[in-house]
């Protein structure tokens, strides 16, 4: 996808808005009347989108996944978004054999079978939404039409009548709505960083969007004209902590009426006692959402709660060595109230402590990299796939805190990125991207099964080998990057992907032996950016990784494995840059290069770094050193908050507040500052 085309699309949207056809004028939504502009701009005639399809969806989830089930010619099929093959695979569920492959010329992220049998897919690396139809089970699907999307489209969901299709764009930070019949664009809403999964409320009036980072879930208004975005906080609490804090705050509020000084003192006391704990634990890994009429009014959002440690302290590793740094959770979102049930955000550590140790210890690893979810309506079970431990875990979806209600788990292929329920046969179907296998297993009832006498039955089948074989080192590196519960990587189960979901950063500032440190984005940024670490202490990636494993108390990898991991890190695909106003970006480029601004002095070269350390007066009180290695500006637009300790939440704030210590911006007009920021977003 070339930038010019995306830029052109943005201009068309802006033109439609300017024509007054939309009633927009909102800071959160775009368009609304952009339909005409998109119809004109569409590269394919809308009528082609309307072609009939022989597929009949199995079940109705209203949301896409990396696999979606359908019946064609009486055969039960899975359409699989195979990002490595850059194709949709057609798999016979009963024989677990690949019947066909539909090449797409781009990596599909999700696939969705609409009620009329048409198949939708997002092409993550082409920024396109594709509509396909089925003719027969053994034939490839036929591409009927496409529509451009914001950069990196990932998840698909539909309104109850499939009249509106919504798509999240990870790097583009958008929720885009399309006409379900023609794929004509309807509107775009700007959402926070790294949106991933999406589901549409039963009434079709809002969409719920999960985020891989940021401790939030977004609720986007689909019905109004402004398409406002509400953020639902997803932060974890110790048992009883949220209730106690709420109680104390109420008491203080009451006290304020009679004795403001006493109230202030009480508030300070709380802050002193609770510190950062009063904010709750941040969360990330929001890759999946699930909803079902079986547990109506609830949306399930598997997460991981993170304790990054006190940034004012310098622990021995990444985070507080005395605390569990990562705790899985399944947030239950009240669809009507558009809020999370606090009960589902309660950390389960005390519950875990009840369990006995020694020989009776529960050996099952935790789900620290949840990736997909589906609900089995028969048993009201929430099934979550977990990277790293390659498992599917069934929780009680009727629970106020599903995480503590694990019923059963199944081991599936490596990298289970998607799950679907074949309700007629009451089986789970899982697509595992890393080993390209389909796993099926009977879900069974809700009874507690003695797995010694009745071991879980999982049938697994590999798909046809790739035409262009993936380098073995890269494939192994990908598995190692996502290895959770692996003592070679860490002692507490953390994987590389825990702090770098999808190769990005977790937007969290960790307490480290050097001081507070933001995780950094890796995908597309690792090669040519040596030396490594915020202080530039490591000249090679191999050494830097070895040091990282030490700090995670991991045993370390063998050299062949380390080579593989370095290969993977160095070749992770970078996301496509977001479209921008070319004139504004050009003006920003001039400012960037100007001696007055002084940006290019340090941020030089192809990777926008001179590789040297500089003191820009950013030393935090817990920092050992005052000078920091110039970070590459590649992909800087999507990786906030900024600086080594995350002190600036936006690029705009950074540019203003670093005046005089890191270049000069005070002399710039608001328009020039905007232009400079625009340029930075193109890097």
């Amino acid at each position: 996808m070339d930038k010019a085309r995306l830029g052109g699309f943005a201009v068309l949207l802006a033109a439609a808005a300017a024509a007054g056809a939309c009633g927009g004028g909102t800071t959160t939504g775009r368009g609304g009347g952009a339909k005409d502009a998109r119809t004109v701009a569409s590269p394919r005639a809308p009528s082609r989108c309307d072609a009939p399809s022989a597929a009949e969806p199995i079940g109705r989830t209203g949301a896409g996944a990396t696999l979606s089930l359908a019946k064609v010619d009486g055969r039960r099929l899975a359409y699989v978004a195979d990002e490595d093959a850059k194709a949709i695979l057609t798999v016979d569920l009963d024989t677990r054999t690949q019947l066909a492959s539909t090449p797409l010329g781009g990596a599909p992220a999700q696939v969705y079978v609409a009620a009329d049998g048409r198949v939708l897919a997002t092409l993550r690396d082409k920024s396109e939404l594709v509509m396909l139809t089925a003719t027969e089970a053994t034939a490839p699907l036929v591409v009927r039409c496409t529509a451009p999307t914001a950069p990196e489209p990932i998840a698909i969901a539909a309104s109850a009548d499939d009249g509106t299709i919504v798509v999240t764009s990870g790097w583009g930070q958008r929720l885009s709505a399309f006409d379900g019949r023609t794929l004509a664009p309807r509107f775009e809403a700007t959402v926070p960083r790294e949106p991933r999964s999406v589901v549409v409320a039963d009434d079709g009036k809002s969409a719920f969007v999960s985020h891989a980072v940021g401790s939030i879930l977004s609720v986007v208004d689909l019905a109004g004209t402004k398409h406002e975005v509400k953020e639902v906080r997803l932060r974890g609490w110790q048992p009883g902590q949220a209730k106690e804090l709420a109680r104390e705050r109420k008491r203080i509020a009451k006290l304020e009426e009679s004795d403001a000084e006493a109230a202030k003192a009480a508030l300070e006391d709380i802050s002193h006692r609770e510190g950062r704990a009063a904010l709750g634990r941040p969360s990330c890994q929001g890759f999946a959402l699930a909803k079902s009429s079986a547990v109506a009014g609830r949306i399930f959002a598997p997460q991981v709660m993170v304790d990054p440690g006190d940034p004012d302290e310098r622990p021995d590793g990444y985070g507080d060595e005395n605390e569990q740094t990562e705790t899985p959770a399944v947030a239950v979102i009240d669809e009507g109230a558009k809020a999370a049930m606090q009960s589902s955000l309660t950390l389960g550590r005390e519950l875990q402590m009840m369990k006995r140790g020694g020989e009776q210890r529960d050996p099952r690893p935790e789900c620290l990299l949840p990736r997909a979810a589906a609900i089995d309506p028969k048993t009201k079970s929430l099934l979550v796939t977990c990277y790293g431990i390659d498992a599917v875990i069934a929780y009680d979806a009727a629970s106020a805190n599903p995480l503590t209600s694990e019923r059963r788990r199944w081991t599936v292929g490596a990298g289970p990125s998607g799950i679907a329920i074949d309700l007629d046969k009451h089986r789970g179907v899982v697509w595992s991207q890393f080993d390209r296998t389909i796993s099926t297993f009977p879900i069974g009832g809700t009874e507690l099964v003695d797995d010694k006498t009745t071991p879980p039955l999982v049938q697994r089948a590999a798909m046809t080998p790739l035409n262009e074989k993936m380098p073995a080192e890269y494939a192994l590196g990908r598995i190692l990057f996502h290895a959770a519960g692996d003592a070679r990587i860490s002692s507490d189960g953390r994987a590389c992907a825990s702090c770098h979901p999808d190769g990005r950063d977790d937007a969290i500032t960790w307490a480290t032996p050097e001081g507070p440190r933001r995780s950094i984005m890796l995908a597309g940024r690792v090669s040519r950016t040596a030396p490594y670490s915020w202080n530039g202490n490591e000249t090679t990636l191999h050494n830097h990784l070895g040091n990282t494993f030490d700090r995670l108390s991991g045993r370390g990898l063998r050299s062949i494995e380390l080579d593989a991991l370095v290969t993977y890190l160095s070749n992770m695909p970078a996301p496509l840059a977001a479209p921008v106003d070319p004139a504004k970006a050009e003006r920003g480029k001039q400012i960037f290069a100007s001696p007055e601004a002084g940006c290019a002095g340090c941020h030089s070269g192809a990777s926008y770094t001179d590789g040297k350390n500089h003191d820009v007066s950013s030393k935090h009180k817990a920092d050992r050193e005052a000078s920091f290695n110039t970070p590459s500006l590649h992909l800087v637009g999507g990786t906030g908050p900024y600086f080594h300790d995350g002190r600036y939440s936006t690029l705009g704030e950074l540019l203003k507040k670093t005046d005089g210590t890191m270049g000069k911006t005070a002399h710039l007009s608001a328009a020039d500052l905007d232009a400079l920021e625009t340029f930075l977003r193109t890097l």
Partner: protein
Amino acid sequence: MARLVLLTGVAFAVLAAASPASAGDVPKYSELPSGHLSTFPTAKPPASIPASEHVDGFFVAMPKFSPETPARARHVSVVASAKSAESIRKGDSGETDEREGATCFSDSPMNGRHDPDDEPDPESSEWSPGLRTEVNLWPKSEHNDSTGIGAVHRERLVVENGTVTLESVDAWVDPVTQGARLIGRASLPMVLVGTAVGGVKVYAARDERAGGVRFAQLVVVRPAWESRTRGGAMQGLRQDGTGAHAGGCGHLRIPLAVVANEGESAIVLAPVELPSPSAGAPAKAKANDGPPLSVKLQMLKRRRPNGKPKTAAPAPAEQPPMVEREARTRDMQIHLSVSQSSRDQDPLLAVSFGWAGREQVQRVLESAPPPSPAHGGE
């Protein structure tokens, strides 16, 4: 013999008959039978209770103390039977009886830190779910507010003619006179909402109070076999950190408040015995399939000097014959929850079962099962 792990014939039958769990169709909250349990009294205790006053089911006994024990340290115990009271008076160890239908006591409110400045907490007057077979009371001491006449809560799961009721009786007990005075009685009809392997059962009821305060009362029971000896007592923890335990008595009860747009949950850990393919038949020891080392060491200690532990032991005339068999135990995690989203007209009750630990294998001596008719026993 006291160190031997015994399995009663009755319990064995219960275990054998235990059906697989059937938690799939948990009733809706509104479908649960309704009643109420008593709450912690808000009235001040009486100044004194004459020794002549008694309450059925409250047996007060003072253990034997040495003459040096000061009066303020001489507690009385409240137990459920005259036999237990007599054992306490004699200085014998108290009996415990963890089985469906046994009696449990509590003597404190669940939320003892209630601040009068806070908004009323519906749980502040709930009896603590820390249940046990006896409670102790100390004579009044000016240095300790919690001494003197105290409120004691007694509850028992009554299973009769296919109906299940949680009966509760509250009484003031005077540790000086050993007299007891009735505060009130309550009855909560319950329904079975889940069963699991190992004979575990979960009952539930609606407990609805004045002012719209609602609870789901959930009671967990398991067979009376000696699992507590092998695996420990049942214990529970609500997500707010409030603990609950069976303390050796008949059941474990978890109250969960029903709150609009919110939820409450708890887990219960219950060590259970798993059905064994060789259940009932004398086990043949395998060289590589034995119990963990720690258990083996215990077994060695348990073996009689004649060195023939696997054969049926020559039983005393009044005791049934003993056999040795392999017992598989595992910690079960029982999840309990009630929640109500803004769209739920009826709160959603959830009961589910999972595993909380690895399977353990032990060799135990137990009463031989009675001969079956098929083998010509009759």
